[in-house]
């Protein structure tokens, strides 16, 4: 890896100031993705600011104000702790399921919640510095567009980039309308809705998200919801553990008897960001929670997919997975596939 300067601090403002003054600096949290990318010469920061000592690891209930009933998760808490915390397991089991569907126990023990949001695509052309890639080297071209694109996007891609965003956690956060709280220089706090946090590639695939240089993710806010009893995360992958999603679906159903009051559906493995299945959600509102309705909504959503050469299967698989997730959620969060 390239030589770099290593700095650490226990103070959030100091960390932000350090980052802000050097456009080539990066924060280092769990390092489960950044260090790999540096070893491969994909990421080339000349300074790493270690933020693992910042006091941003707690998980707490929001008891007052308009967000009362929600939970705040520290940006530098470990994925494992978020997944297993009693507040999360009890009121936001969808998040637990999604986190535990990702990576391996060892990686989840290292990876932070903020870092999970910041992880970069696993497109193999992005990792291979000998290949053209607009995300790694803007203007060089997209190798995956005409290449091996079985793992790639079916929604929202551009001619510049067809990569998908790899997180499982963020797919659940998307379905739960989480907010990402970030601290800026001089201590201002900005809150970004999860569905505005990651972006579609458009003409700037090098930008994964809307975070600005010099901003630090301090916490993730989970607003109170009423689908804890009816949620599901279904992840389809090439092996049963430690693989990125071909397609994944996070869903929560608010039910009134057998009637769907609202459906919350987000997909992973299909786009450059967690893909909110708003067409399916709209179709299900007010309908009976039946397999036939689930299937109709799922197929309606997937009918808008634009698959690439090697991932045409994702259209049918996406419909199956949405259907399966909705069916599971309707049976109850503890139902087994």
């Amino acid at each position, binding site marked *: 890896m390239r030589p770099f300067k290593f700095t650490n601090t226990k103070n959030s403002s100091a960390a932000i100031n350090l980052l802000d003054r050097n456009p080539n600096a990066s924060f280092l949290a769990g390092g489960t993705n950044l260090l790999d990318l540096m070893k491969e010469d994909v990421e080339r920061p000349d300074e790493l600011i270690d933020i693992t000592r910042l006091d941003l690891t707690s998980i707490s209930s929001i008891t007052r104000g308009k967000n009362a009933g929600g939970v705040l998760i520290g940006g530098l808490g470990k994925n494992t702790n978020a997944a297993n915390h009693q507040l999360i397991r009890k009121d936001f089991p969808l998040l637990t399921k999604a986190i535990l569907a990702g990576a391996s126990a060892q990686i989840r023990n290292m990876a932070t919640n903020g870092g999970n949001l910041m992880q970069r695509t696993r497109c*193999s052309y992005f990792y291979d510095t000998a290949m053209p890639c607009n995300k790694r080297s803007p203007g060089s071209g997209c190798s995956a567009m005409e*290449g091996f694109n079985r793992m790639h996007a079916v929604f929202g891609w551009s001619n510049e980039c067809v990569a998908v965003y790899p997180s499982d956690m963020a797919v659940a956060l998307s379905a739960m309308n989480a907010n990402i709280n970030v601290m800026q220089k001089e201590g201002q706090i900005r809150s970004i809705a999860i569905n505005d946090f990651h972006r579609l590639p458009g003409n700037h695939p090098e930008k994964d998200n809307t975070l600005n240089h010099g901003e630090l993710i301090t916490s993730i806010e989970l607003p109170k919801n009423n689908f804890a009893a009816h949620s599901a995360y279904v992840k389809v992958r090439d092996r049963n553990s430690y*693989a990125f999603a071909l397609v994944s679906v996070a869903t929560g159903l608010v039910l009134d008897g057998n009637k769907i009051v609202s459906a919350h559906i987000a997909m992973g493995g299909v786009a450059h960001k967690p893909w909110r299945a708003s067409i399916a959600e709209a179709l299900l509102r007010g309908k009976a929670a039946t397999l036939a309705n689930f299937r109709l909504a799922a197929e309606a959503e997937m009918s808008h997919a634009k698959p690439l050469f090697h991932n045409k299967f994702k259209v*049918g698989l996406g419909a199956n997975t949405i259907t399966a997730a909705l069916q599971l959620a309707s049976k109850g969060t503890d139902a087994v596939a």
Partner: protein
Amino acid sequence: MEEKNNLIGKAVNRIDGVLKITGKATYATDYPAKDMAYAVLFKSTIASGTITDIDTTKTQESQGVLAVITHKNAPRLNVKGGLRGGALLQGPEVYFYGQHIGIVVAETFEQATHAAHLIKVEYHKKEEKIDFEKLAPSAGMPQGKELADLFRGDAKASLEEAAVKIVETYETPIEHHHPMEPHSTVAVWEGENVILYNGSQIINGAQASAAATLNLKPEQVRIISPFIGGGFGSKGGQWANLVLTAVAAKMVSRPVKLALTRQQMFNSVGLRQRNKQKISLGATKDGKLISLAHETTTHTAIDGEYIEPCGDCSKIMYETPNSLISYRVVPMNIILPTYTRGPGKSTGSFALESAMDELAYKLDIDPIEFRLKNQPERDPSNGKPWSSRKVIDCLREGAKAFGWEKRNATPGKNRIGNNLIGYGVACGSYPARQRDSSAVIKLTRNGNLVTATVEIAASDLGTGTNTILAQTAADGLGISMEHITVKIGDSNLPPAAGSVGSVGAASFANAVNDACTKITDELLVKSNKKFFVRPTASQLMISEHINSFDTRADAKAPMEAEQYSAHSFNANFAEVHVNIHTGMIKVTRFLAVTGAGKILNPKTARSQIIGGNIWGIGMALSEESIIDPRWGNFATRSFGDYHVPTNFDIGKLDAMFIKEDDKIPNKMGIKGIGEVGIVGVAAAVANAVFNATGKRVRSLPITPDKLL
């Protein structure tokens, strides 16, 4: 007086288990050397052409760099010295993507890695041959005579006459060995001699090929490899990295360590080639095979030929009057394929045993009964009698243990919740051979305690060679295992065969056993006494007050072994659950029943068999390397893309051994289990998927998308 131990056949613990779990077992990179320098390889980013310029200016200025070695300044090596895969920096030509084109040596690994990133290479590109789909129709005859077309009767005509037939093509992708220990070497020169610490499945082979390539005499090269972190064939023949480490060490006049990265493992040490296998089977209405053709099309390197023998199982598994085994091969700009666990048999049995399952289904005969109906009395390929052949027992006892009677013969009918459940069966085999090996036994007495040292240039891939040799010596000498020291993995020891092709246990253990017999005989002569009951070597050392005594045995396979056909055989049983929505498959149960002669240690043997089973499950469900036909690079370039099985993919595994007492292949009756454990596995899983879903997937791996 000490009694004989009877340890052979007992499930004793590994003698090196504690060393391994405490990190004290010394693998190649664990050897310290004073003033070690670190080498990093850099590789071509084209598949075919010529290097026109390598700009190393920035690299040489980079901190800590000691040397940059390319074809321009590398010493002349003997490219026909026996190393596999070329890439020895002898010229500007590039034959495959990822060919080594240079080495950076620096004070630290990190400095060398960074400096290697600064190299600029310019090429003159030639048109690459990398699209197997396009090139397969132009494949020609292999150069190797052993793979010439093999006809018996008339397979084509008899297929026409068959009442029931199957003609299908089965595809298997490129796979990689990916042992846990990537190929690594530490090279230390002592004057004109070099010590190479390097994981080597064949100690003397590594020595010979390294010496020849470096233009040295074999005795100038010493290979040290007491422990190997897996190899699966990729550390059988050695690759350029072994000798390039020695070259680097010579050029900087310091010891050098060179370890391949996981990414570099994809195109540095061979691979299992992609195969298209066309199987044509014809049978009578009552299920007697009358025709079997197994036609394989595959690829090899531009500058060398290796073809895995996919038709081997088809030669011997079933009785048929008419058969054809053939190979066609096309050279491509891909690294030389090489021996990969169960070479030919694992992939070949996927095709043959899938086709047998398809034909059984068409005939409406239980797939086990169908196999039982077509067992050959003698080896159909050469007419020789079997030394022993327990396929029938493997199938019958396996069926009973697995609960085969619970299988629903109609696919897609066994469902629990959202899962379809299926059972599959498939057989396999692998030849049993003993190869020349020598062993030295050294006995030392201290009062009434006799200790022994066993010396043999054997290798231990992690499978338990150290342990079975200690067991063999303990029994052969009448000394308990804790008083036996086993020295292996050093070319200064008596020469031996390798841990390859399932010959290791038979070759090494018979050599040690012969040495035990010989040393006892010699001690008897020395004693000049007659004994009513033959004493052990240990007893003789004590009774005759001998302080130290050595001998060496040079063991060979029995002469009569050639007159028989000797193989290990197995039957594999798989249970799969397939999710109806997602197509995800879980192998919930797997049973391998193996007839492999004398099992020296049921504990290490079970580990070997289930290890083979797990790779076979990976072959069936997830392992595949994809080449981008535009450049010739692997689009699957890490363990994030190349999916080996995880714990969660593997359900309950069981290994059963059928008792066999077969002294024909060798005196100890050992047939070998390293390879056979993977043979037939992928077919058993694929057949189970068919039984579960009614979908026949003929192209591995069976990923979820193929079941939608």
